[in-house]
């Protein structure tokens, strides 16, 4: 009851602050807005850069964005997904053909969930964990991927030969992460995806395939190939609910032996502004944990990010962002192929988005040397939401 009275008492102040912000946004006083109630992208990126400094190793380790390994105690809140995996494994052990897809938005913990499969298998079972490193453009790429996954010394010469090898290999549980790389909107790649799918389906009675996709790529694969109909189990991960997020963050602090005493309002605002997206919530938590209580004059950490400038992006920018959201990341050359752009045009477009802070350049872990571009991870949820709202994502 006390909470209700408290909420009612806060209402006039909140209304006043809301009206003030709206007025400032309306009149274009962005700096005032960002300073008072919103994170400007520039400040947020500054805080991100600062958070990578080794100010507190414990905090850094607690909120490391990397995928969690098997049996990591910080992996919690995915009980339903684990149950589905257990069910798929037991059905496969009974001899039923099974294939599992795990899909969810970027940063939701697909790789962490895949890593937990190790904890679910029996001692005698063989598990292979592999990830897509490149897009499949032709049959040779597909054969190379399977040769690498199965640890073959030589790449099979043809698809039937590969299928024969797969039929003769002892049953395995094969995890394939980053399967969103299958969604590539360039002419000529359709055959490669169909070949990849046909090999999975042909070997499905013997091996258990578990693939991790990002949501928008999964949707596109469904529109183009009706991918869903070939998977017996589909696990859909989503951002954390308020309770789940509280449990996840508390567990991370506990694991790092850091004591926190946040009010309910804090937790609720953390969920509200991060929308339950783990990497964004971790960033807020890092900032909150590193905050010096003596510095009272600093603006509050828990405030939403000002992405109102997304409305000013032109159509080509929005299409580029939409394709980045679906493809996960793009080389400049891939962008050029998708949009029929000149090399300079693609570079300028992607660099422009980089300068706006919406996209970031990175070197992939698979040994590539050419930089790729991806949507700034902590903003991916809000950008995807905007793209959906303006009808560039569906």
């Amino acid at each position: 009851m006390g909470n209700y009275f408290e909420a009612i008492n806060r209402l006039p102040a909140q209304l006043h602050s809301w009206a003030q912000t709206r007025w400032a946004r309306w009149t274009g006083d962005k700096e005032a807005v960002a300073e008072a109630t919103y994170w400007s992208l520039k400040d947020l990126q500054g805080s991100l850069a600062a958070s990578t400094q080794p100010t507190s190793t414990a905090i850094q380790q607690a909120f490391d964005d990397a995928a969690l390994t098997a049996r990591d105690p910080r992996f919690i809140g995915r009980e339903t997904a684990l149950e589905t995996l257990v069910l798929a494994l037991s059905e496969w052990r009974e001899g039923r053909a099974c294939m599992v897809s795990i899909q969810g938005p970027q940063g939701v913990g697909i790789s962490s969930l895949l890593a937990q499969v190790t904890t679910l298998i029996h001692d005698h079972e063989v598990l292979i964990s592999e990830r897509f490193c490149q897009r499949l453009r032709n049959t040779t790429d597909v054969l190379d991927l399977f040769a690498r996954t199965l640890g073959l010394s030589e790449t099979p010469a043809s698809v039937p030969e590969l299928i024969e090898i797969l039929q003769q290999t002892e049953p395995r549980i094969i995890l394939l992460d980053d399967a969103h790389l299958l969604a590539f909107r360039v002419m000529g790649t359709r055959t490669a995806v169909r070949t990849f799918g046909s090999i999975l389906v042909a070997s499905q009675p013997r091996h258990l395939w578990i693939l991790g996709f990002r949501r928008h790529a999964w949707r596109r694969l469904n529109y183009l190939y009706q991918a869903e109909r070939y998977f017996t189990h589909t696990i859909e991960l989503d951002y954390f609910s308020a309770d789940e997020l509280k449990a996840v963050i508390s567990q991370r602090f506990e694991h790092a032996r850091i004591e926190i005493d946040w009010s309910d309002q804090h937790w609720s605002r953390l969920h509200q502004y991060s929308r339950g997206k783990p990497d964004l919530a971790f960033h807020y938590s890092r900032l909150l944990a590193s905050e010096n209580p003596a510095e009272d004059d600093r603006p509050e950490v828990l405030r939403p990010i000002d992405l109102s400038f997304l409305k000013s992006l032109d159509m080509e920018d929005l299409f580029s962002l939409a394709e980045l959201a679906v493809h996960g990341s793009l080389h400049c050359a891939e962008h050029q192929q998708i949009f029929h752009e000149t090399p300079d045009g693609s570079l300028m477009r992607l660099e422009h988005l980089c300068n706006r802070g919406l996209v970031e350049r990175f070197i992939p872990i698979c040994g590539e040397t050419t930089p790729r571009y991806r949507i700034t991870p902590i903003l991916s949820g809000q950008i995807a939401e905007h793209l959906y709202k303006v009808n560039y994502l569906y």
Partner: protein
Amino acid sequence: MEQGILPQLIELFSTEHLLQASMAILLAWLLLHAIRFSLDKLAARFPRYRLQIGQSFPVARILVWSIVTAYIVFGILNPPEEVMFAVLGSIGLAVGLGAQDGIRNLLAGVMMIFNPPYRIGDMIEMAGHYGEVVRIDLSVTWLHTFDDSTIMIPNAEILKQAVVNSNSGELAEMVVVRIDLPATAQVADIKALALDAARCSPYVYLKKPVVVMVESRHDYRHLLRFSIKAYVLDVRLERRMASDITERFYEALQGQSLLTQLPESSTQSAASI
């Protein structure tokens, strides 16, 4: 009786009544502008729902003007029955004789609001014009064409003629890209290329199917017509998508050396809805 009506009319249209009526009209006009401004803002914020948002304005306008008219007549002027019937009769006669076309268009506009053959944002073709409906007034409809021209069509004309509505209230719309090739073309390969070209265009709405139809036709010689049917993400991107698919298709034909096998000047293409 007629002698009594004139003083009553003069009394009804007193300065005070006229001022009150003007104020009511001014307020209604301001309210409608505010509604239009808000709806435009809302449509810009939620482009996915812009067609649904746009179609609410004509209804709101009719409602506002009906309420204001009723308020002026019954709330401000409040004329005796005999005066009202006499005035209505006179107006009816004058309007019937002098402004037949205007009234016809107005009535057509009212009918269209309650039983619309199209909505704001639809792509329609009528009277040889093709464009997006940007405004539906009580007497006319405004189209915006791809050549950036604005065309005004009287509503009565629209009700008299056949109207082709390409998207019927949806953002996605089917676009047909027709490409004619000689009858000697390799159908299976070219059909696969056409499908691929359409699916790879960023403007294609992949939630709906993409199909390629092949038909035989004769234009001085035997030809094969490949009709690529795909849905565009947003009706406004219709031409852009058609051009993009054609470009990709021709490049692929050249890339696979299929075009060079065809006699020169043997291909032609056209896009239509």
